[in-house]
């Protein structure tokens, strides 16, 4: 048994860093705090790589399967004898893989931010929030039980809120942060209800007990039916709702594009590489339950994923804000991962989708972070977010150009870049399980290549635009992370995921199926070709197309009016038809009743106060009359 006790520092260090920078950074060393934060994260990155090495290559396997190791665990809050929230670290293939993803991307983003955020007001605040985020995200992936995951789930939500609203004086940023928090909070409500149902039926929060494929938890609850579905299915659908919110799947995707109001490094870290894949991670974490006990819920996962990926890809083709294009592309790629999980089964070759999903999560983190950081470098140079205000930048930004091109090729699925391998596995998994979903994903692959190269060509090629200042390449602190991540894009495709990360921890034999790989590369190339024709050749085709499919284009450009629908529901229904009437009811019915009681008392007392006139003679009159009447009573009637 290898000692993993030191993993506690993977949590503690960023948390301490957050407290330290947040409380003291402002006063004593605003400049130094960036470097301090980055160094702290570097230590964590090293620890994570050591952990990964030790876990994958030196830990013991049982029956050829990687074991789940509890590095440490202590009870944080005891509910009942069986239900208690623990805080601990669970090491298994996916959590260790996530450690690598998070720390690598986070470190790159830290270094990049040293340059990008230089001179911004609130520099130390930025780094303390980043530390808070790293802490929460690491806690999330290392969670030993579902409630610990929920705790950190909320914490990443709040760090995302704080970072989106980093420019707190900008009304659009404030709106976006609020929206992100509330939408994900609503989804988290589902997560919490799912946890409650799950815990009621299984009497445990613990992941190892819950997901043990031969354990009692899986069998429990699947028998009890409620409204036609088993209780387990209900709880898994509710839990998935949390994942839908955090991973910006349809219909809770609306916060993600707006979240691009945050600083670009934040978009790269939180809204592309790490936090938004938490939903995928959640499903993967609970996968045995989904696969063995709630297949209906797993189907929901597949269809939501497929629909979201198509939906987002269509919208991405029409957007002009480069960060928004990337945001929709993120949503689309996460849809891929969800779909892959949804079509997978537990163990053996059935588990191909699971492996593919994790593989894609890994490669996606690399290339999407690279895309966002590249976009940040572009925005840094041009001071605009809009493609229409860019063009011909390849001369000015050579390093950014090359790395961005690599990222685009990766996401388009061109070999030998990593995206090709992971996407191919997903398509293969879909092909073997559901042909309709496969067709959808195949089309999305083409769309992806198209919109990414639309972005690439219109930014780096095309005609030169008269910039106010000549754009210049970003400083080394920003370009080094780009180069590192580009290398990551090249290399990560060759990591043998089928040996390391599989649904049951055993080695999965898989090879590239040429029948699927070749057409997928072809459709990628087709997409790139169309983009080339439309955006480099200066043709009028895009405008013509837009004119031909006028309504379709308009709908897609306006994101299918989902935002307006939400706005309608919140502003009109919740505010106008629920809250205001409640407030009115409270003032004019409940309170009025209380005031009414007081009023009646007062009114009656006004009526009868004439009796208490204060005139002695009236009292005396009443008194004497009474006395006489009593006298008569006693003398004549009381015989």
């Amino acid at each position, binding site marked *: 048994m290898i000692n993993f006790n030191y993993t506690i520092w993977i949590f503690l260090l960023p948390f301490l860093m957050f407290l330290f920078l947040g409380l003291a950074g402002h006063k004593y060393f605003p400049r130094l705090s960036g470097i301090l934060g980055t160094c702290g994260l570097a230590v964590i990155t090293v620890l994570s790589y050591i952990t990964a090495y030790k876990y994958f290559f030196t830990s013991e396997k049982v029956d050829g399967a990687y074991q789940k190791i509890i590095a440490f665990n202590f009870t944080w809050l005891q509910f009942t004898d069986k239900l208690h929230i623990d805080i601990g670290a669970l090491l298994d293939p996916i959590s260790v893989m996530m450690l690598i993803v998070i720390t690598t991307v986070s470190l790159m983003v830290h270094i990049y931010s040293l340059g990008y955020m230089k001179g911004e007001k609130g520099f130390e605040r930025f780094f303390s929030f980043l530390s808070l985020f790293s802490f929460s995200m690491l806690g999330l992936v290392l969670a030993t039980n579902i409630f610990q995951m929920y705790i950190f789930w909320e914490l990443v939500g709040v760090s995302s809120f704080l970072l989106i609203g980093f420019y707190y004086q900008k009304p659009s940023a404030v709106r976006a942060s609020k929206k992100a928090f509330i939408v994900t909070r609503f989804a988290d409500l589902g997560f919490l209800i799912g946890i409650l149902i799950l815990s009621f039926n299984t009497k445990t929060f613990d992941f190892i007990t819950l997901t043990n494929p031969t354990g009692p938890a899986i069998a429990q609850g699947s028998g009890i039916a409620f409204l036609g579905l088993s209780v387990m299915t209900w709880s898994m659908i509710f839990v998935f709702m949390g994942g839908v919110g955090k991973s910006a799947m349809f219909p809770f995707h609306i916060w993600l594009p707006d979240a691009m109001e945050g600083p670009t490094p934040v978009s790269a870290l939180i809204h592309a590489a790490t936090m938004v894949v938490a939903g995928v991670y959640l499903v993967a974490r609970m996968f045995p339950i989904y696969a063995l006990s709630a297949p209906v819920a797993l189907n929901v996962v597949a269809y939501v994923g497929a629909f979201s990926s198509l939906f987002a890809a269509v919208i991405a083709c029409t957007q002009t804000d480069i960060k928004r294009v990337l945001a929709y592309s993120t949503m689309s790629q996460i849809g891929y991962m969800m779909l892959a999980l949804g079509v997978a089964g537990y163990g053996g070759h059935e588990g191909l989708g699971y492996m593919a999903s994790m593989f894609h999560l890994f490669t996606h983190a690399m290339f999407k972070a690279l895309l966002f950081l590249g976009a940040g470098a572009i925005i840094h140079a041009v001071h605009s977010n809009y493609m229409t205000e860019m063009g011909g930048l390849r001369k000015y930004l050579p390093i950014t150009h090359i790395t961005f091109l690599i990222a685009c090729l990766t996401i388009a699925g061109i070999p030998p870049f990593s995206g090709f391998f992971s996407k191919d596995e997903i398509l293969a998994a879909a092909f073997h399980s559901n042909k309709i979903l496969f067709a959808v994903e195949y089309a999305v692959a083409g769309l992806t290549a198209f919109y990414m190269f639309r972005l690439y060509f219109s930014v780096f090629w095309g005609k030169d635009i008269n910039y106010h200042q000549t754009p210049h390449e970003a400083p080394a602190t920003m370009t080094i992370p780009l180069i590192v991540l580009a290398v990551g894009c090249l290399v990560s495709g060759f990591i043998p995921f089928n040996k390391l990360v599989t649904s049951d921890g055993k080695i999965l034999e898989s090879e590239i199926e040429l029948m699927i790989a070749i057409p997928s590369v072809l459709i990628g190339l087709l997409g790139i070709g169309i983009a080339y024709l439309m955006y480099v050749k200066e043709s009028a085709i895009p405008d013509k197309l837009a004119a031909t499919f006028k309504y379709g284009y308009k709908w897609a450009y306006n994101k299918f009016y989902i935002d307006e629908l939400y706005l309608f529901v919140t502003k009109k229904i919740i505010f106008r038809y629920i809250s205001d009437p409640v407030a009115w009811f409270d003032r004019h019915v409940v309170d009025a009743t209380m005031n009414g009681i007081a009023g009646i008392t007062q009114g009656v007392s006004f009526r009868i106060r004439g009796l208490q*006139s*204060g*005139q*002695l*003679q009236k009292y005396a*009159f009443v008194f*004497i009359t009474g006395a006489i009447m009593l006298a008569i009573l006693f003398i004549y009637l009381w015989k």
Partner: protein
Amino acid sequence: MNSGIPLQYFLILATIMFFAGVYGFLTRRNLITILMSVELILNSVNINFLAFNRYLYPHKLEGMFFSLFVIAVAASEAAVAIAIIINIYRRFTTINVEDVNEMKF
């Protein structure tokens, strides 16, 4: 012993005086008149005391003493009342009870 005026006469006189006093107390609005009515009531009671004392317990003196007490109390009461009335008059320039209502409500 029984020669002279019968007891009923005293009682009738006292009753008339009592109700005259009550009537005056209830209807008059002038403080002095009200005070005078109270004196009437008190004196009617005195007459009753004396009459009953004389006719029922001729060898005892409690009735006499009681009426002496009543006279003394009435005298002091009149003194206090008149002092108050004078003060009221100084302040309100009236001794009509209905006008003296500053403390009401």
